[in-house]
Structure formats: structure tokens, C-alpha cells
């Protein structure tokens, strides 16, 4: 009964986190995955997401599913902390679900939370004392699937290598199991020039910043990831336990963020931090105080977060455009994100006067030369300039 109540309570928490993210509209990256737009990540997860496009509630389905997976991951932590005192186990689970990465990212439809979950599975496998040789092939397959979900899975490479090294499999088999998936991922980048271009672009996006600014952002990301308390306890645990696989992975995450910083990568720290705490339980000496402090910091962070509870211009405009009876494409001038495509039921194209004859509506985020003289009229009382075809 107690377990069922815990599951239901955690699920309610997950749904609330998903609803919180759903209050603002779909973001450009989320739309990219939901529509399976082929960059920058490999196709595995985004094609699964696209397969659910027929669902009216596709967006909320994925928000709830991903939040559920991240929150219910505490059961894996319960398993990882077998042998710990009940108070320590509760603290470990609390540190996970009350970390700001979970609060702010678990309801987002992004690849980073999925990669973090995959990372947690690798941390579990690494810290587990069970003999894994009998299912090593499945682990290698999971590694391949992780890399074909998002490139960032490679940051957990030291853990994967350590897991296979410990099994004492034949050297060639280890290399084929760990190295071939990485080689296939590189091959995929080569076959997708758009992915390659955005990959190079992401790698150089911090070059205009000073080293100090970049360092500040990365350290800020690490601190917010585990709501300061888990962030510090986790790194202390990793260092004091001298767990070189965890140390290698967290160093890679730091280096990766130094070159390609994005706020949503913060969650990649989380499985490693919790791994550090489990690898060195001495950091849980005052576990109740630690958890209390974690909750206080997380609530403080939530209270100071910018909350946007209004539909995006894309949703507002496209809801109106989708209701038009006329046939035709939608033209958009100016710079716009993929959320405009996600909200549209019809084809969206970049504005060019030669396409006006095929259009039923024109959205002018920038100037739309010639639209007024082509049988379109402007809709009044809208924050965005929208023109629709006269009947």
C-alpha cells in the first residue's frame, strides 16, 4: 500500500511538472523533435516522437511521459542504494526529484533529459556489483541506441568503457561494442550535412565569449543542475571516491559545456552527481539536513524563475490561420522558429512575393513587400501582422 501511494504521489508530481512546462507553448527545439526535423540529432528518438503525430495531445503526451520517466527514475536509485539506511535512501531519492534540473527540465520535450536518463542507467550499471557479462550485448545495444538518440550520450563514454573493461571480454569484442557505435554516429554526421553544419556551429558558439564568462556560465549550470546541494555533494563524492569513470564523464560534461553551452545541458550533470553521492555515501552523514536544504534551495530557485504562462505568438496566430476555410500555404517573412511549423496544419514556407498566389495567409514578422496589393487584407487587433486572402 505504501509503495502504491508513493508511485501515485510521484506520478502526481510528474504530471504537475509536465503541466507547468505545457502552460507556455511548444518551443522551437521541442517542435523540431516532435516533427522529426532532421537536425542535429540522429533519428532514433525524434522518429518515435513523430510517429505519435496523429495524437491530438501529442505535445502533452510527451511532456507527461518524459516527466514520468525522470521522476519515477527514483526506483532505480532505490535499487542503486541497496544496503544504505532508509534515511539515506530517502535522501538520495529526494536529492534527485528536488533538483532543479528535474523541476525545470523533466516536462520539456528535449533530448537532454532523455540522455540524462540513459546516463543514469550507465551509472547504475557501473556502480552495480552484479555480473553483467551475461547481458553485455544488450548493454552495447543500449549504448548504440543512446548515441542514436543524441550525440551527447558520448559524454558517458568513460562509464561505458569502464563497464565493458570490468567484464574482461576479449579486447576486440570490447572495442566493437564500445567503439563501433561511436564510429557509426560519426558516419551519421557525415551523411547529414545539415547536422554536421549545426554541430560545427554549436562547437564554436562560445568563441566570442571570454574564458571567465564561459566558466561562470558552466559553473552556474553545474550548481543549478543539482540545486547547489546535490551539485556540491555529488562532486565531493566523485572526487573522494576516486571513481575515475565518473570523474572522466563529469570532466567531459564540463568540457562540452565550455565549448557548446546551452542552459538545457545542465541536466547532463545530474546522473553523475547522484552517482557521486552513491559512490561515496559519507557525504550523506547529515542526510536529513542535506535533503531539507536541497528542498529549500529548489523552492527558492522556483520562486525566482521567470514563469511564462501565455501562448506564444505562433500558437495565437496559427490557431486563427488554421480556422480559415480557404486552401493554400502559409508564408512567413522574417526569422522564425520551428514552433510556427508545429502549430500549423498546412505547409509553411518562407515569404517570397512569387508564392503569394499559392498562399492563404501571410505572417509578417518582418516586412512583407507587395502583400497588400495581392488580394490580401490585414487582420486587425493582433500583435503580429497577419494578412489573409480575400474570399
Amino acid at each position, binding site marked *: 500500500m505504501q509503495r502504491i501511494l508513493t508511485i501515485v504521489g510521484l506520478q502526481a508530481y510528474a504530471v504537475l511538472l509536465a503541466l507547468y512546462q505545457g502552460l507556455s507553448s511548444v518551443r522551437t527545439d521541442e517542435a523540431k523533435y516532435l*516533427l522529426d*526535423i532532421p537536425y542535429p540529432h540522429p533519428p532514433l528518438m525524434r522518429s518515435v516522437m513523430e510517429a505519435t503525430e496523429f495524437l491530438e495531445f501529442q505535445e502533452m503526451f510527451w511532456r507527461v511521459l518524459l516527466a514520468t520517466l525522470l521522476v519515477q527514475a527514483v526506483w532505480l536509485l532505490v535499487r542503486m542504494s541497496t544496503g544504505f539506511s532508509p534515511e539515506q535512501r530517502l535522501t538520495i531519492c529526494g536529492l534527485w526529484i528536488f533538483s532543479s534540473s528535474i523541476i525545470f527540465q523533466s516536462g520539456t520535450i528535449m533530448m537532454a533529459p532523455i540522455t540524462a536518463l540513459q546516463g543514469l542507467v550507465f551509472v547504475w550499471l557501473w556502480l552495480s556489483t552484479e555480473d553483467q557479462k551475461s547481458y*553485455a550485448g544488450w548493454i552495447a545495444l543500449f549504448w548504440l541506441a543512446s548515441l542514436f538518440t543524441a550525440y551527447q550520450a558520448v559524454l558517458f563514454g568513460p562509464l561505458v568503457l569502464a563497464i565493458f573493461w570490468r567484464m574482461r571480454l576479449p579486447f576486440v569484442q570490447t572495442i566493437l561494442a564500445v567503439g563501433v557505435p561511436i564510429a*557509426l554516429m560519426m*558516419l551519421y554526421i557525415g551523411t547529414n550535412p*545539415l547536422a554536421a553544419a549545426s554541430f560545427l556551429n554549436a562547437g564554436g558558439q562560445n568563441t566570442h565569449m571570454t574564458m571567465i564568462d564561459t566558466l561562470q556560465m558552466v559553473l552556474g549550470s553545474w550548481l543549478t543542475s543539482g540545486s547547489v546541494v546535490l551539485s556540491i555533494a555529488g562532486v565531493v563524492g566523485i572526487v573522494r571516491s576516486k571513481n575515475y569513470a565518473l570523474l572522466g564523464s563529469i570532466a567531459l560534461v564540463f568540457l562540452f559545456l565550455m565549448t557548446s553551452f546551452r542552459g538545457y545541458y545542465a541536466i547532463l550533470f545530474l546522473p553523475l552527481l547522484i552517482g557521486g553521492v552513491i559512490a561515496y555515501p559519507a557525504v550523506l552523514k547529515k542526510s536529513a539536513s542535506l535533503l531539507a536544504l536541497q528542498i529549500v534551495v529548489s523552492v527558492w530557485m522556483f520562486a525566482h524563475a521567470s514563469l511564462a504562462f501565455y501562448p506564444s505568438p505562433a500558437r495565437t496566430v496559427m490557431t486563427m490561420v488554421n480556422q480559415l476555410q480557404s486552401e493554400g500555404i502559409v508564408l512567413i517573412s522574417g526569422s522564425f522558429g520551428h514552433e510556427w511549423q508545429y502549430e500549423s496544419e498546412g505547409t509553411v514556407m*518562407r515569404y*517570397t512575393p*512569387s508564392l503569394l498566389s499559392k498562399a492563404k495567409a501571410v505572417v509578417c514578422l518582418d516586412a512583407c513587400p507587395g502583400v497588400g496589393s495581392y488580394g490580401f487584407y490585414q487582420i486587425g487587433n493582433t500583435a503580429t501582422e497577419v494578412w489573409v486572402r480575400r474570399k
Partner: protein
Amino acid sequence: MERLNRYQWHILWVTQGVIGVVLCVQLFSLVPLYTDSAIRSRTQVLLKATAAREGWLLSGVSIERITDENIRVVYRSYNRGRDTEGCFVIDQKSGSLGLCNAS
């Protein structure tokens, strides 16, 4: 499950092999893009010009094959519901756009 466990490595090798072959075939048709810097920069210019002229979003363009004569691309318009898709050939010299079927 026991029987499936026995074949776990076979499943892995076959999966990796299939992915490898498919990717190698795809990469082979894009080789000029990586070996010839002139073709690479011309492709970039032609794709951007075609996208601007046709109203395409670059994220919807995937390059199928590149030769000295032309670039074969598939343009897919991503949105909720049915996506429209078309195969096109861009002439390397004139930059003109034609349908794949027509060539």
C-alpha cells in the same frame, strides 16, 4: 527471453552492420561534398539561393546525391498533419531547378 539472450551479440552485430551499410551508401553519394571544396562552396551557395527563391526552409532540405552536373535534393515541408515532399534536381551550372522525374 533465455533464447533471445543467447543471440544478443548477433542482434548487436546485425544492427550495427545494417546501420553501417546504409550510412556508407548514403555517404558515398555525398563524397564530392567532402573531397572537393569548390563543389562544397558551390552547393552551399546554390542551396541557399534555391531555398530563398522557392520559399524553402533549409531545415527541410536533404541532399540525396551530388555530382559535377547536379545536386539531387528532397524537400519536405514539416508541419502537423501530412507533410508535402518533393524530389528536385538543381543544375550545378545554371542553378535551375527541375523535378527528379523530369531528368
